[in-house]
């Protein structure tokens, strides 16, 4: 199967090169047969890479330990689902996974795009084929997943215990899907620049692709936080690690784009900015891959240091030069159709929102690269960790949260004082009431107060928007509240789906603020001994160590420490935290012992128990007990955010006639102003 896999990789590489050269040379113009050939080559590349992936999966499932990759990431006693997920557990396999998914996206872009984008599609095929060819070339020349060993080991080394978690089965594919699918909007942007079709057509072509990409990235980042929380055992979910930052960067610029693209659609403005954002998002996704795979910046997530990083660095530089040169050559054709009229307008609010998104992205990038810059300039190594990022980014994030509430309240073009008063009264009152309630209940943490008060303000904005919409429908159509609500969302999915996304964001901020009230303690307990830990919500946990039991499971020896939990004196069940020594099928240890956290999650707080180890080989156990307030809301916020995104991109959204009428009405009102000129 490895021979078939190798052959498939070479075929995909050569087809990718051919397709890219033919597309960029422009020979296909006036040659429908050549256009068809380019499109077919995109499908053929996808087919070849699917064969390559299946070949590696076959090797993984059949325990072909002669394949170096299979030997390095699996063992005979590894549970089957982790054998499947081992495809993306290592550097080489994840490159193959990346390439195959990208080729499938490229094929889908050709297959699903409307005929009116036909002039763009050969260029799109060229860009996607070039990117696929690059990834395949990295595999062929630097990180081949089909490399064979001189001697076949009896068993493999097994999968890193921290990757043996359901989060790692789902989180990396989600994140990769997000990173990878960015290539499609980028390809359409480059196609628009190359073909000089710089109207809003390319924007319409990529809207859903961008949303898909944003959804996968959002889900991937949230699942990554969940994995870090349940698996790594440090009690948090975000550590500003370079690889975490690398996933956040394209998300920030893509979110900025999803806002600013509305201004281009409605007003024909920000054309250069939008193209720049899409190109920047693609480059940041490649930058993230470079950071993860080069070892240039220390990270707990990094793959083994290898020369693969230099491939990505070279690709990043070449792609940046070509893209921005192309953008520069089309600069004069990208003039805005109208100009911004007022600072008090929704367009201006979106501009400031974009400024903050891009500013935060710059700040995160700056902090991530600052250790390298400092070493280059001053020659001294420094660490840039959470204190730095929190100090710089928390105020910016709060400003962004504030704009989340302000943007929807301001009218397009220009808001009047009366309009502002009408729109802001309820949300501001909601924010002030939230602040007063928090102060009355004794909350004193400054950032938590600001975050929660702003969350109250944003909630007020969203509730007001839904309330007005529902009320309008009830007046016009006499509908019941549930029906009016459902139809309101269904008829304007983009707008109200967007508000749902804002709900998700504000829930995120509420969850983030909870960490300001975290409580933790360490304790060494003999069986029967207890400690007490006070919750920030006023109750007290009594935690009694019951004992440590040891037993063997499929691919590990487990030492499970058990704790009886009482909440305010009432029995609240039993929790277990484990130490796991993973072994291969011969019982030989494969990795250092790992820790499995015990978590009891609730709406108010999580009780988080870590079994740190035993004293002197006895049942006397060392624990770290943590109370993490409001963490559950983070996962709920992620769910709402993704649900809102799905609503936004769901096909349909009201009859075309209504959209046409809205559009015509817009022109009529514009003409009223123009008449007076």
């Amino acid at each position, binding site marked *: 199967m490895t021979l078939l896999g190798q052959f498939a990789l070479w075929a995909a590489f050569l087809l990718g090169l051919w397709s890219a050269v033919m597309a960029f040379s422009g020979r296909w113009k006036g040659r429908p047969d050549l256009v068809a050939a380019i499109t077919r080559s995109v499908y053929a590349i996808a087919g070849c890479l699917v064969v390559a992936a299946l070949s590696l999966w076959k090797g993984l499932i059949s325990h072909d330990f002669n394949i170096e990759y299979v030997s390095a990431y699996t063992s005979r006693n590894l549970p089957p689902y982790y054998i499947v997920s081992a495809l993306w557990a290592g550097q080489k396999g994840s490159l193959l996974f990346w390439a195959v998914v990208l080729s499938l996206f490229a094929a889908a872009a050709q297959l699903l795009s409307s005929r009116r984008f036909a002039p763009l599609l050969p260029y799109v095929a060229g860009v996607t084929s070039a990117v696929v060819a690059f990834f395949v070339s990295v595999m062929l020349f630097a990180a081949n997943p089909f490399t064979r060993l001189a001697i076949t080991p009896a068993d493999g080394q097994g999968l890193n215990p921290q990757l043996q978690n359901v989060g790692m089965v789902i989180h990396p594919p989600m994140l990769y899907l997000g990173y990878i699918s960015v290539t499609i909007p980028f390809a359409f942007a480059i196609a628009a620049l190359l073909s000089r079709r710089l109207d809003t057509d390319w924007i319409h072509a990529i809207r859903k692709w961008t949303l898909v990409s944003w959804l996968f990235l959002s889900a991937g980042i949230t699942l990554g936080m969940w994995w870090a929380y349940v698996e790594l055992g*440090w009690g948090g979910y975000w550590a500003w*690690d370079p690889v975490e930052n690398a996933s956040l960067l394209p998300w920030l610029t893509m979110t900025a784009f999803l806002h600013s693209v509305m201004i281009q659609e409605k007003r024909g403005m920000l054309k250069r900015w939008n193209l720049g954002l899409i190109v920047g998002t693609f480059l940041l996704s490649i930058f993230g891959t470079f950071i993860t795979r080069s070892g240039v910046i*220390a990270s707990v997530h990094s793959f083994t240091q290898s020369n693969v990083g230099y491939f990505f660095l070279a690709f990043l530089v070449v792609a940046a030069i070509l893209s921005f040169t192309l953008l520069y050559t089309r600069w004069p054709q990208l003039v805005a159709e109208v100009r911004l009229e*007022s*600072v008090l307008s929704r367009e*201006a609010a979106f*501009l400031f929102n974009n*400024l903050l998104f891009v*500013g935060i992205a*710059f700040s995160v990038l700056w*902090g991530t690269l*600052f250790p390298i810059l*400092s070493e280059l*300039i001053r020659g*001294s190594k*420094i*660490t*840039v*960790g*959470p204190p*730095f990022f929190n100090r710089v980014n928390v*105020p*910016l994030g709060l400003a962004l949260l504030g704009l989340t509430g302000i943007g929807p309240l301001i*009218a*397009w073009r*220009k808001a009047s004082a*009366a309009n502002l008063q009408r729109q802001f009264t309820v949300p501001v009152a909601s924010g002030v009431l939230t602040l007063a309630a928090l102060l009355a209940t004794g909350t004193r943490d400054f950032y938590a107060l600001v975050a929660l008060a702003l969350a109250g303000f944003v909630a007020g904005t969203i509730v007001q928007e839904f309330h007005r919409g529902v009320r309008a429908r009830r007046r016009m159509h006499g509908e019941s509240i549930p029906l009016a609500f459902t139809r309101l969302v269904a008829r304007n999915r983009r*707008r109200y789906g967007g508000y749902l996304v804002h709900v998700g964001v504000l829930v995120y901020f509420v969850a983030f603020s909870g960490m300001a009230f975290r409580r933790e*303690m*360490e304790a*060494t307990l003999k*069986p029967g001994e207890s400690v007490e830990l006070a919750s920030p919500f006023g109750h007290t946990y009594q935690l009694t160590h*019951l*004992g*440590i039991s*040891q037993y063997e499971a499929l691919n590990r*020896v487990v*030492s499970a420490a058990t704790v009886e939990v009482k909440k305010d004196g009432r*029995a609240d069940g*039993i929790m277990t935290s484990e*130490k796991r*020594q993973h072994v291969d099928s011969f019982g030989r*240890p494969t990795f250092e*012992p790992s*820790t499995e956290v015990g978590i009891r999650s609730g709406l108010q707080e999580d009780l988080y128990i*870590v079994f*740190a*180890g*035993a*004293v002197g080989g*006895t*049942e006397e156990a*060392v624990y770290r007990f943590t109370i993490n307030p409001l963490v559950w809301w983070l996962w709920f916020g992620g769910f709402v955010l993704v649900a809102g995104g799905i609503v936004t991109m769901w096909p349909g959204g009201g009859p075309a006639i209504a959209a046409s009428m809205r559009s015509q*009405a*817009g022109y009529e009102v514009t003409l*009223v*102003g*123009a008449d*007076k*000129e």
Partner: protein
Amino acid sequence: MDEPTGNGVASRRGFLRALGAAALVPFGVSPGSQADSLAGRGDVGTLRDPTVLGRPRVPTDARENDKQIQAIETRLACNCGCTLDVFTCRTTDFTCTYSPALHREVLALFDDGKTAQEILDAFVAKYGEKALMAPKPRGVMNLTGYLLPTVAITIAGGVLFAVISRRRLAPAQARAPGGNTDLAQSSGSPEELERLRQALADVED
């Protein structure tokens, strides 16, 4: 003859006790609350195989929960390459040997009566500035690191504000002698203009 019978009775009783306990579980009565120790023997039983737990631990003392020490350690970077701070690393990566050693150094300095800042300074003197989780906001380079993003955003925001404001003023001044397109200054009652603005805002959403 009695012995097997006795054993049989004992095992039947044990079986019935276990059955009764299992039946109570759904009602929230936990039979496990008797500190049942499967692997241990005696008060603090020994484990069957302590090696699978990794590095043996020493009992924690009161200072492990000292907020001052925790605060100092969260500002110090572990030098094992984990990118975590000393407190998080020593309470998370239980295989790390660096963070417990650094923790002992912190405790020793604390016991010598050093303040938090003096302890941080001592670490910087010994390990270099990389010992801190974030660089000190001192010196041109570090200050640039802290301030550049915020300053850049503030300047960009200010420029944006100025440009939009100027654009708004320029056409108004240019049109001052003749007609103007500013709805706020056009003919028609304020109510009518507000109604138009609302209509515009509604249809363009």
